């Protein structure tokens, strides 16, 4: 890491024939990321997860496994996985779920769809809401800024996890009565809605701070003196300079949402049967850690590797795009 930490200067000249002056901050950052081996490896790991999640229905067919099929043959009369190591066999490469004999690999692959979907859409929504409110607050200042700031304080003051758990059932029912398809669609919508509701503040604060400093810079002043409208200021002048921070923030908050989805499922605010979720698997496996340790181990490691990869990628992006950030001094 120390290489990349001190990297901001050396890599720049190596970017082809272009001089660093002609590069946007975005391209400069990208060039720096490519130098960071840990971030590159993490990128491939994340890509692999995304690939598996997207193509899960095809992959399970190729591997001849079914995440929903019960397999009585794979469990013994106690309902525990038959055979050693949690029932690992050619038919079930990662073993089977105690009680039902459902394939763990298949369920992990389908669970990845849910985790990444919640993580991706949750991050997207918080980013859109956060960036919008942050820019508005930074540009308008005054009363609007104060209002958004206090709203953020109030939001952060909520014990959000408790609220999410307590409101899960009534709010899901409310969503269903509003026409959101009943069942898991409504439940996922709820989870994403509350993630957005409680997650926008950090992004908004970050963006607001950046906007406050950017709006005083010469190029913005110049654009304004030529009579540029708000739209031009936001999209042509401010946003291109905000991207690095946004990307860093997104890459660091995504793993948090993936883990949070698992946490919520673990706590019972999750999906309905027979859907697969990493959190449900982890919650269930705790009871079997003696009889089938692989059942706890495999989903746990799967989740851990994904979150670790996201974090490494996020660190790499931060080092590259935001060279002045605190991390540099560590």
């Amino acid at each position, binding site marked *: 890491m120390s290489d990349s930490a001190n990297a901001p200067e050396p890599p720049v000249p190596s970017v082809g024939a272009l001089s660093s002056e002609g590069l946007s901050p975005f391209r400069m950052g990208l060039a720096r990321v490519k130098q960071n081996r840990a971030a590159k490896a993490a990128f491939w790991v994340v890509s692999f997860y995304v690939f598996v999640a997207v193509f899960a229905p095809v992959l399970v067919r190729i591997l001849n496994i079914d995440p*929903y*099929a*019960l397999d*009585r*043959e*794979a*469990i*013994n*009369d*106690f*309902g*525990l996985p*038959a*055979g*050693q190591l949690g*029932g690992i066999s050619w038919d079930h490469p990662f073993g089977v*779920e105690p*009680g*039902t004999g*459902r394939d763990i690999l298949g369920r992990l692959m389908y669970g990845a769809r849910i985790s990444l979907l919640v993580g991706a859409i949750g991050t997207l929504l918080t980013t859109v809401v956060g960036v919008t409110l942050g820019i508005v607050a930074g540009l308008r200042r005054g009363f609007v800024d104060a209002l958004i700031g206090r709203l953020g304080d109030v939001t952060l003051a909520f014990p959000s996890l408790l609220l999410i758990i307590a409101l899960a*059932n009534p709010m899901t029912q409310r969503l269903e009565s509003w026409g959101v398809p*009943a*069942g898991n669609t409504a439940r996922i919508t709820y989870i994403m809605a509350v993630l957005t509701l409680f997650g926008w503040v950090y992004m908004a604060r970050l963006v607001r701070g950046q906007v406050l400093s950017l709006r005083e810079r010469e190029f913005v002043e110049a654009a304004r003196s030529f009579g540029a409208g708000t739209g031009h200021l936001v999209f042509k002048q401010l946003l291109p300079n905000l991207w690095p921070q946004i990307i860093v923030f997104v890459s660091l908050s995504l793993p948090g949402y993936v883990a949070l989805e698992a946490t919520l499922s673990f706590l*019972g605010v999750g999906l*309905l*049967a*027979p859907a697969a979720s990493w959190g*449900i698997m982890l*919650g*269930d496996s705790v*009871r*079997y850690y*003696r*009889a089938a340790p692989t059942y706890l181990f495999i989903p746990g490691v799967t989740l851990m590797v994904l979150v670790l990869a996201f974090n490494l990628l996020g660190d790499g992006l931060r080092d590259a795009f935001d060279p002045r950030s605190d991390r540099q001094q560590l």
Partner: protein
Amino acid sequence: MKVRSKVLAIVALVGLVAGACGGSGDGVQSGEESGGLSATLDGVKDGGTLYVLTSAEGASTLDPQRVYTGAELGAWGSTFARTLTSYKPVAGKDGTSLVADMATDLGTASDDLTTWSFTLRDGITWEDGSEVTCADVAYGVSRTFGSEVTAFDGPQYAVSYLDIPAGDYDTDSAYPGPWLATEEEQALFDEAVSCDGKTITFNLKVPVADFNFTVSLLAFAPVPEAQDTADQYGLKPFSNGPFKVETYEEGKELVLVRNENWNAESDEVRAPKVDKIVWQFGLDETVIDERMLADSGDDKNAIVYGGILPVNLQTVFGDESLKDRRTDGFDGFVTYTMLNIKTVSCLEVRQAIWLALDREALRTAAGGPFTGEFAQSFVAPLLTTDYAPAKLLDGTKGDGTPNTKAAIAKMNEAKEKCPEVYAKATEDGLRFDHPDTDTWKKYMAIWIDTLGAAGIKINDNPIEQSKYYATINGDQGDLMSAGWAADWANASTVLPELFGKGGGFNYHNNEEDPAFAEFQTKAEEAKMETDRAAQAKLWKELNQYVIDQVWSIPGSASKAQNIVGSNVRGAYQWLPFGWYNLGDLGLAG
């Protein structure tokens, strides 16, 4: 350390055997096991401290009028709450027979069975040495009515039987319990329950043939008015039994010590041996099992409240050296799936659901044969007098596996006969209410998969576990999971409660079913029958009748497994309560 490594060796061995059999089982089977040496009194000595290990955070309550959990009824009854009658403290079927406890005999009924009287023995004392009077018994019973002050949680038999007019209080009675009653209201109760010297008389509004069983519930235990602390009484009840409550702290411990003022001569039922019983609350379930297997130090003098974890059954029942310390048997509960007869009014659809259901897969998901046997009756096998395996629906299989073909045929019949219910079951789906637990997530996967094979759609509807019964009390799904155990050894506390008019646990909405009237008539008839053998015959017929109507689908007659420390003696399973006779347990060595 030696014991611990031995345990590990067993685990490894079981694993090997299971591997060698390729998953077809491992020879460890569930059967009746009565505890061997631990159930006898071999080498028992007076004195010592008995420990009760449990993962529960506390007792549900120590208040005799409010306790309703089988094991606790037995535990408090055998230690600090004597009643007019109680069960014979022996193992086996004999344990369900009634004996006189505080009363001199099993009570005297009037010819029309609406008046019952009991006479108290001489010399029964409270823990402060004062005498237990008839007024104390009457006062105790009156506390059942106080739902405004306590909660609506104890058995309500006094409310439904005693001859007190209906009214507007929470219990639907005109009497609000001793704490709120005006003088006129108290007079209503005093008329229904009256004292004449040592004789207490209960006037009932309905004839009850087995009221002497009813009074064995702790709801009919005496409470001295001077000691009553209303809704706080459950923290420190006043004892008239061989033990008294020394300290009780939820989440920590309950200490029962010997009651010096208990008069052994007045008590022909209890035979206490230990000096002290200590309940340790809030322990980790896994840790409890580990400690019991290790069997060292004070854990040799320990029993478990809450049973063995399913994942450890293989270990416990695979080791023959534990034969003298373990029990395996029915716990009195029958689990079943209730159907909402208002929404699933079509018999053919209900039959199809049953035929398509995979009881075997559900039982395996729960932990296999140790969790129970496929129920053939809503009456538990422990109620030996009233139990007879019913003839199940034609086409269902004895091994619990589904008969999807027959289910599809039934659905095709239903398509003709009741197209509306058919459409609901196949297109909209049936809502299945159940407590939200990890195990239930698996049950639902099985329900959805197996019923789906017969074209029946199930919609999962998990409800937070602690609110489950309160929720379905207000809003019933199309299918609902449930379990029930008899309140005393008579099916009168099962079939009318589950299926009858005003039954305390009847969420079937079955009153408009064409078959309901006949059920209700027969149930009334059976309740009034005084000849026990004739009554048992009626219950058996009635059980067959409800099975034929498929108002509910029987799941399993559940079993429980327990393990005790190597010094514990007298640890037989007491049938009425499905647990040990706590007060009579002793220690050897």
